[in-house]
């Protein structure tokens, strides 16, 4: 049976390769910057490792890790063949390669939205406990949980993705609002009304064809789409209440708007935010890199604070999003790939580089007070950003990940948010109930 499927998928892949004329993963390396590594390691021939990424920004980071690996391990040099594909395309390609048993890379960056797909059935990713367990205590533990199944870790985190509030001080100052006074969401709404009255600008923008800030808002209250055992809890009272409150912010208090383009990564959204279209957004820490890259006019005006809370006992953040880097069992150099990956992502130095090169919040918290991370950042109000992180180190909960995770996120992104907050064809409660119904039908299949 497996063989049959394998043949079919191999054919599909071959055909798609011919049709789209995209480069096959096993073409000869053509990546520049490899020569340096070769010179330093005349002792051994470098082993080529194929590496797929879906985010161009990550390529330079791994190239940097490659250089330091080759310097430190002249007897086991590596040559990295990095291929970068668009997000959805890379994951489809990977799924087909893994199901057919041929063509998968040695190492691959997997988006958390899709990670659960690769933890079904006979898992074709390598177990990474050997390198994770010795350093586990220094990491935000929940970031391993999201890439684990039955206690075995299959992916290494790239960042914490701690959700924070980004306030535009230029707008808040006009209304005389101090972001340090905003502790609860009720405070946030009051501040929003002041801002709206003084400037006419909405306090916050919500994603309506994606899932933020709804997801971090329910995770900070201890809820989620799925519970720990993977059962659907999308329509529980906390979630209904949260979505109702978001609805009120938009249509009753009128302090919130839908993001242009519907999501924080739409090309329409960046100019909107850049020109002061909203006084704040609530997004994970990795969104700093988007500010730096796409919103140059906000330099010096943005400050980072913990998320407001709903009630006593809530956490002030939630770890949202993520990229788990995995080694596939198809790799011919399994040990080398795992060791290289550990070098690239688990060491202290690597975690400092994650901040320096990618502007992500590194998952290893014992580097948060390192001098490189403590340097005040001119873009973000000249503040020591990681002091905010250190304050809430134990308050970063991560969502539950199980078989239905990819589907649950799809349903929320595509139907629940849009129908309840934008189209308004359903009330928040109806939209959540309908979404939960759809997910339960998958649960019982």
């Amino acid at each position, binding site marked *: *049976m*497996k063989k*049959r*499927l*394998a043949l*079919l998928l191999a*054919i*599909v892949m071959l*055909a798609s390769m011919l049709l789209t004329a995209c480069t096959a993963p096993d073409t000869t390396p053509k990546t520049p910057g490899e020569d340096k590594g070769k010179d330093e390691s005349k002792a051994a021939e470098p082993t080529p490792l194929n590496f797929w990424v879906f985010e161009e920004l990550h390529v330079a980071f791994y190239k940097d890790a490659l250089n330091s690996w080759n310097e430190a391990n002249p007897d086991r040099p590596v040559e990295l063949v990095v291929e970068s594909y668009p*997000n*959805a395309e890379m*994951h*489809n390609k990977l*799924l087909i390669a*893994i*199901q057919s*048993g041929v063509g998968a890379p040695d190492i691959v960056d997997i988006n958390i939205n*899709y990670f659960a*797909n690769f933890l*079904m*059935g*006979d*898992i*074709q990713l390598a177990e990474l406990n050997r390198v994770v367990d010795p350093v586990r205590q220094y990491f935000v533990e929940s970031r391993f949980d999201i890439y684990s199944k039955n206690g075995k870790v299959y992916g290494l985190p790239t960042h914490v993705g701690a959700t924070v509030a980004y306030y535009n001080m230029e707008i808040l100052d006009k209304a005389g609002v101090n972001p340090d006074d905003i502790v609860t969401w009720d405070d946030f709404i009051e501040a929003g009304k002041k801002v709206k009255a003084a400037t006419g600008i909405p306090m916050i923008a919500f994603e*309506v*064809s994606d899932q933020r800030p709804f997801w971090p808002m329910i995770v900070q209250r201890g809820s989620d789409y799925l519970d720990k055992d993977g059962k659907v809890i999308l329509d529980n009272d906390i979630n209904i209440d949260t979505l109702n409150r978001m609805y009120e912010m938009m249509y009753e208090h009128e302090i919130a708007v839908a993001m*242009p*383009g*519907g999501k924080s990564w739409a090309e*329409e959204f960046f*100019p909107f935010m850049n020109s002061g279209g909203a006084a704040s957004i609530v997004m994970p820490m990795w969104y700093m890199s988007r500010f730096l890259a796409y919103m140059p006019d906000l330099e010096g005006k943005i400050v980072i604070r913990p998320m407001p809370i709903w009630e006593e006992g809530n956490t002030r953040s939630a770890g949202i999003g993520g990229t788990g880097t995995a080694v596939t069992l198809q790799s011919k150099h399994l040990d080398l790939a795992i060791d290289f990956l550990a070098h690239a992502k688990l060491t202290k130095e690597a975690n400092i580089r994650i901040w320096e090169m990618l502007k992500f919040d590194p998952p290893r918290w014992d580097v948060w007070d390192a001098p490189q991370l403590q340097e005040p950042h001119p873009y973000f109000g000249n503040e020591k950003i990681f002091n905010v992180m250190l304050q809430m180190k134990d308050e970063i909960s991560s969502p539950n990940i199980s078989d239905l995770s*990819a*589907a649950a996120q*799809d349903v929320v*992104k*595509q*139907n629940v*948010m*849009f*129908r309840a907050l*934008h*189209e308004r*064809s359903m009330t928040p409660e109806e939209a959540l109930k*309908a979404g939960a119904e*759809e997910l339960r*039908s998958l649960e019982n*299949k």
Partner: protein
Amino acid sequence: MPKGSLGIKSFLYSQTVAPYIFILPFLLSFLIFFLYPTINTVYMSFHEVYGMGNMNFIGLSNYQRLFNQNFYDAIRTNTLYTFFLIIILIPLAILFATLLNIKYLRGRNFFKSVLFIPALTSIIVAGVAFRLLFGESEAAFMNSILIRLGFPAQRWAFSHSTGMLLMVSLATWKMVGIYMVYFISGLQAIPEELYESAEIDGANSISKFTRITLPLLKPIVIYALTIIIFDGYRMFGESYVFWNEGMPGNIGLTIVRYIYQQAFQRNDMGFGSAIGIVLLTIVLTINLIQLRFFGAFKKEE
């Protein structure tokens, strides 16, 4: 009986074997790339393909799962899209063909090329251009025109009606040239004498068009209808360029996108296969009804 010792030569020269050797390349590609995947799709549609290579027979339950709102939404999108394509594309193509078939029209070949060139572009490239034209900001081309005319700017990709408009206009722009060529060839096959004798009988241009041109174009219209129905129901690209990772509220969710979403984005190959089989059934049924309705199966008299 031929003797076996004559060997390869008699084998190749044999009148019964040679034809099969000539069609072998086609036969092989048909078997490997078409028949085998088709059979396998049917096979998978009765299984739960769980994770990497585990299959589990589950009877009809993939098909039972089809009775859900998302699938209905997908069918509705495809049906509306096909309907709009038929009522816009065919008349428009006939109109262009008739105009460009007028002998004394200047620059005929230039206009023919202009209308035909979009057919040669990739749907993805054309889609990117359309997405920019129909951008959400007030500075985007279509919105800036609307604002000049005194209408508010639209968020084109965020509602069902404008979403449909985007897909239909992209498809029309891209395909009208091809259908125009079909109709031009149809027009040129109509004998000149018919028009001449009609003129002698005193027919004006309009009655010549409705009494001679249209009836004689019927075979081309049937052909165009069949192709449009196929194209309409298996549409993917027109939707993919506007909402590439997923669309809000199922705007632009077509049957093929539903397959893509279930099979690849959610790793549920069995259900994806079941949707594929149902799509095949739907298209075959509609086309058979349509062909019968137009009498394509009647014997030539």
